[in-house]
């Protein structure tokens, strides 16, 4: 399998424990690589520019620049970017609706369901492979 078929993931969460959980789930797949982590929205925006991830896992409730602000900036500034929100507020219609409207491709609730994360990563990887096939 070529590197180009590996899903590159960025994890944004102000909790080291929450980051570790997602990193561990990523590590369980040979086709997924964590290319960066960030502790708030501002760091996330910088990390996206540097690491060029295929998929971002973004928390919403963070100190400093929170997730909704970061999501708005990412989706407006980088059309086509793939952001999955992972938040304790995922069950809240208000928060989830806002995240989807801003451009999130999914909203997952903490505590995370490992199978939901794995399923999402695999579908995003398949999507990337398909995009590579049709690219000129």
């Amino acid at each position: 399998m070529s590197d180009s078929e590996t899903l590159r993931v960025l994890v944004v969460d102000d909790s080291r424990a929450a980051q570790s959980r997602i990193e561990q789930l990523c590590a369980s797949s040979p086709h997924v690589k964590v290319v960066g982590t960030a502790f708030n929205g501002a760091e996330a925006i910088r990390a996206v520019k540097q690491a060029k991830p295929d998929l971002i896992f973004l928390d919403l409730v963070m100190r400093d620049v929170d997730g909704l602000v970061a999501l708005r900036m990412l989706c407006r500034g980088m059309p086509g970017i793939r952001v999955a929100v992972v938040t304790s507020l995922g069950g809240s219609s208000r928060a989830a609706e806002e995240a989807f409207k801003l451009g999130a491709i999914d909203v997952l609730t903490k505590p995370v369901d490992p199978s939901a994360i794995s399923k999402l990563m695999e579908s995003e990887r398949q999507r990337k492979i398909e995009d590579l096939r049709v690219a000129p």
Partner: protein
Amino acid sequence: MSLRFFGQYLIENAVIRVEQLREALALMDRGRPRLEQLAVELGMLTRAEQQRLSREAEYTGYSFLELLQDEQMLTEAQLNELIGRRGDAEISVGAALVELGHLDSSALTLWMRRFGDEQRPYYETQIALPGALNRHRPARAVVGLFCRLLPGIAGISVDEGSLRAEPAPDIALPSAAILARGVVPLWLELRVEPELARTLSRGMAGDASLDPSPEDGEDAVRELLNVVVGNAVALLEEDGLHLSIIPPDPAGSAEVERTLELATSAGKAWLLMDPAPDPAPRHSELELVIDA
């Protein structure tokens, strides 16, 4: 498992696509009465007050409702009436999907039933709290979810029968604080025994061999509080109680009215609560610099 949004549940089960959900949300928005208009129509705000808050909402990125709550311009009864009136006029995401032809009504009924069955355990979380706290709905939701979610988060079981009003020991313990602000606010601090913090850290990371530092323990306690209170916000939203959460500085403490002690399989935890906190500062001043 945890509390979820119905639209996300439909996507996860491949009933709809995210683009269809966004269409439904846009349809809901078009039919949704604006809170600021309703507040003026109902005589709760003057036009000038409404315009000032609308400008502030645009400038700060905060919602009109959050600003109303922060500035305490309406009574609790008025806020509830306002939210209720808006809710009465709203259509649900399911109804919007049916109207757009993305889902037929019999499928909607079926999926709503399945979703309801999955989510019911969280809504049936009932724990009696000592004294006046038992009448405080957010406090009951938080303690109930603490007991229900902790096993799934970190494999730690909670002895619900151990719950009692008992002060935390007067020593430094791993702790975190959070503020749920809204119509019925709640300030909360969670303190745990060091061994519980370490077990929590290992459980959250999913790595039993981890040797967590004290900072890792504090981080895990903070994340636990975030998860429990975030889920409580979602739970209470269904009851029409709108709250938002911000992680405050634990040192900016409120007056603790009650401390509850809980025994878990990895040590004791204490929830310190103030059901009537001062509103927190709305915004920290931030400058975000992004490289071109």
